[in-house]
């Protein structure tokens, strides 16, 4: 498989995530679209690690492993981000009885 198939797949997933962030007003859906964009980046990192592996041969193990460790740490950060983000959304819902992000402009006052 040439690597550009993976590049275009990841770019398409990322752009769907961006469109979701732009057009939806439900805070939870926006948050899920951010997760989708993180996953597109992860997929691209793994594809590039395997491309690296193919180009340099199997004597360069660690370089391919580095990318996958990086993906692992992205998942760690995403898990931490989701706990705090969902706590914020729950508090938003408790204060405004809605998950509409447009109510967040009350922070202005």
């Amino acid at each position, binding site marked *: 498989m040439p690597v550009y198939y993976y590049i275009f797949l990841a*770019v398409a997933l990322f752009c769907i995530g961006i469109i*979701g962030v732009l057009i939806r007003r439900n805070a939870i859906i926006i948050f899920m679209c951010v997760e989708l964009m993180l996953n597109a980046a992860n997929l691209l990192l793994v594809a590039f690690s395997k491309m690296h592996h193919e180009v340099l041969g199997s004597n360069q193990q660690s370089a*391919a492993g580095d990318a996958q*460790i990086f993906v692992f740490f992205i*998942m760690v950060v995403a898990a931490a981000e989701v706990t705090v983000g*969902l706590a914020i959304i729950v508090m938003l819902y408790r204060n405004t009885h809605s998950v509409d992000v447009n109510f967040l402009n009350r922070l202005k006052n």
Partner: protein
Amino acid sequence: MSIVEILFWFLSILALGGAAMVVASKSPVHSILYLILTFFAISGHYILLNAQFLAIVNVIVYAGAIMVLFLFVVMLMNLNADSEPQQKNKWLLYIGGIAGGSLLLVIVAALKQTAATTQLVQMNNGDAGLIKNLGMVLFTEYVFPFEISSVLFLSAMIGAVVISKKEA
């Protein structure tokens, strides 16, 4: 067409269709279920690339833990298609779609020119993604970031409790 290519196209269509339905569906619960489908398709891609450790972690952490947390919060708030906040200004919808589509167009057009994109990806073999090799790298070279991530989790846990506590 080999079996690997058929699987690649199948999983890609599954991932893209699921992602599109996440944005398009009215009910938040349906969005979450489609996102789980997308994550499973991406895990399938990891298996196809022989990154077995990441495939399993993706299923356990993303599809298993994170999405169940989302589902739990949506059901806690009792959200459904009726309580969904509506975009009042239809123009914002079109502008958002056009902006995202233009970004896709620009990136694809820019990447089509680069020469490195025709390089092959090693499918279905290669042992960089096996648990043994990744574990060796993680616990020798990356042991310090690994320990730091435990501090990150601790602070995230404390932060979540402090934020969601009632009127502290």
